[in-house]
């Protein structure tokens, strides 16, 4: 164990003053130190994407980033997607199109898709599948995830 470092993480607009070891991943810090357990950890080696969050407008795998690297950056997690009772179009589209089953990978897919569509609202179907192949889902066979993201993309362009 090494010395802990004090830092502030800004998650969904709220500051969390925490003290963590330098080796602590952003994923662990979000979940355990900031109590935002909507971000899930599926592999801890950057393949499955369950831990995807948006850091300064880019989707990142929070298991591959240290918490200390995220200080001063704007972090968005699944808990910040909805506006009160109003779901984000991506959340609504996943519900409408059966884009989730067990729901474990869902927060990662939501953040990946939102992050990419905010950057590239007119993304082609082919590029979209490229992007969505970054994350793993074991339940849905991706069919309805792709359908959900396409539906949300239309909604987000409005």
């Amino acid at each position, binding site marked *: *164990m090494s010395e802990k470092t004090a830092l502030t993480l800004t998650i969904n607009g709220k500051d969390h003053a925490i003290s963590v*070891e330098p*080796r*602590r991943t952003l994923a662990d810090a979000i*979940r*355990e130190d900031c109590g*935002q*357990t*909507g*971000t*899930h*950890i*599926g*592999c*801890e*080696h950057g*393949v*499955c994407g*369950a831990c995807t969050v948006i850091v300064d407008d880019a989707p990142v795998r929070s298991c591959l980033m240290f918490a200390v690297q995220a200080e001063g950056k704007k972090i968005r*997690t*699944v*808990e910040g*997607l*909805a506006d009160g009772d109003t*779901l984000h179009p991506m*959340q609504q589209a*996943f*519900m*409408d199109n*059966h884009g*989730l*089953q*067990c*729901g*474990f*990978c*869902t*927060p990662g897919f*939501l953040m990946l898709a939102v992050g990419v569509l905010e950057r590239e609202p007119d993304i082609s179907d082919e590029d979209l*599948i*490229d992007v*969505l*192949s*970054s*994350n*793993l*889902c*074991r*339940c*849905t*066979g*991706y*069919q*309805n*995830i*792709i359908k959900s993201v396409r539906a949300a993309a239309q909604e987000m362009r409005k």
Partner: protein
Amino acid sequence: MTAHTKGSGGDGMKWVGRSIRRLEDPALVRGKGRFTADLPAAHWVRFVRSPNAAGTIKGITAPDDAMVITAADIKGVKKITPMLHKFSYRPVGQPILADGEVRFVGEAIAAVVAASEEEAEDIADLVEIEIEDALPLVDSRAAVADGARQIHAEAPGNVILKGEVKTPGFDEVWAGAAKIVKIDARSNRQNATPMEARAAHAAYDSITGRITLHCTTQMPHLMRTAIADCLGMPESDLRVVAPDVGGGFGQKMSLCAEYVLVTWLARHLKSSVGWTEDRRENLIASFHSRDQYIALEGAFDKDAKLLALRADVLSNVGAYSCFPTTSGVEPLMAMAEMPGPYDVQQYQCVARGALTNTCTMAAYRGVSRPVITFTLERLMDKAAKAFAIDCIDIRRRNLITTFPYKSATGLEYDEASYRQTMEMAVEAINVPAFRARQQLAREKGEYLGIGFATFSERTGYGSPAFAARGMAITPGWETVHVTVDPSGFVEARIGSSPHGQGLRTTLAQIIADEIGVPPGMIKVVHGDTDTAPYGWGTFASRSLVISGGATLIASRKIRAKLLKIAGHMLEAAETDIVLADGKAKVAGTDREVSIAAMAREAYTQTHRFKGEIEPGLSESGTYDPPGTFSNACHVAIVRLDPETGHVRIERYLVAEDAGRIINPMIADGQVHGGVVQGIGNALLEEIVYDDSGAILTANLADYMPPTAHEVPPIELHHMETPSTQSITKAKGLGEGGTIGPPAAIVNAINDALTPFNVEIDTIPATPQRIRALLRNAERAP
């Protein structure tokens, strides 16, 4: 593609058969799901696992002041020893922590307990384990070879069980066959790979002395029974909760030694203890499956009619036997269901389970059926070739068309549509157009192939089916308690334990139609042994059929009671009353009363119904059906690059019949997900051991579940043959999607390989394997 209606109900519309949105989703899309690893704990566990596949533990050295638990510390804890009373089964026990011997790489030897996961991991790195190596047995054929070292004292020859069947008259029919066709099929080892790996969290309650164990399981009640047995504690002192569970696929059915130890620690420390498995542990040390060799021969008459099947099944069951199904789960399923959807009355089979120095085998979605379907469907294609007839034609000659049908192994197939779903698929895929395209492509040096898989899927089977296997624990039935509370809201407590299947929604649809309350007012409660009735959880495509049936039974009782109360309140004959849209109405009049008002009466005005209606509005249903058979035809069209061995699936089509469909959207989702796991089975996923018993595929870059890239759009077509063996008329379909792809895809690959005159009968059919075949063919003189 199927089109489904969406709607919000009302106007007395039926809820069953509609694609309503899932009641599970609002929490999950907000990140408000509650998974085991989300719980805080005072202590965390890290397991120190064996780096050796086989050997004797000579010493364990832990840092001073560290809490490191080994077998010596848990002497009173019983081994996990599942039992079968048939098939010469040898009961072998699995110690909770390796006791003296290690039998596979990844076996837990010690448990480090610390205040945080990181600290526990740091200490675990400092624990030194000294092991005197023994020769590891990795391959099942090596393990059962003469003179092989014995892995368990209880199992001579490393055979844990041996099943044998032979129908009377087999030899005569076999001798009279016109042609014998043979396949040596190999299915390599896979890992179910739920996105949430295993996790457990046990907390001691200092007031009651009880333990609450949250764990990611498909069978919370059986976990309670089994863990209480291992620890010798009253079952009532243990509460097991399966909170949100991030996929299971069979891997989370079996009892994990780790869960027993975490519970033991919480009792020992009188505190809370957490364990979250990492992905590497899941890949090397949870449960594996599908590691089988099957030699299958088919005897045909001169018209390519299948007369008899002869099978030799060798299933690598790993180091221990899984609880509760035992390591019979794969070999015995293979033996019982090998004849599949074909009319064949003569059958001989020997099925063995081989103990090896590898991770323990357990159920994985479809269990043996992806492998036996692959084997049998490859055999049918080979037979078609041998008779020089079309691969569809040979299936037309052999599929069962009259029901009920009694199989050679004594299974009774209920009404199904084997032939019709195949014809539906044949028409939809347009075979003549494909053959023309294939010919044109070949002329340009491009290789396309088409492959079919027809199969049946035994689903929703109750206790007689498990009893037939001789299981000491025979699951099967389910109980459901349905309560309408005094405010008119409905709660159904179920013993099944869904984890992604959408059962909260589909059961609510069943209840809604019976008692006239919309699904939004119905809560289905599951997963907590303190609140749910004893039940067997969710596995084997059983929950919608069995829990659904129990739900229907309980709901019908509630309905009967509501009609009586309404009769009183509306002063009408029960037969004139309609329950719909949250009300009881007298047909053809404007007289009505809300179900909420009736529920209130049922609790608070019982004197009005004295002697006629029992107080309250709560009923139970239990259902234990014989089992039903879903069926499907899968078709794959692939493009094969002979230079690289790479296979791309261009088109994938499923024609499926799972009886009455309760929620088409959810049913389609189950098929989609199954098919994609099957694509992984067919092309990508393989746990690779080296000769020393070390796993070379211990991360998700080396062990490759499909991504969105490898998956084509999946076209679904449905038929609905209502089941006579299921009171909801629904058949199960949780596993079906997974069963067809290895057969359909590898048949398609072999079709594409026809010009090269090579065949592949191994899954996964990786580029390396395909290239090796082509290389050998190129080298051949």
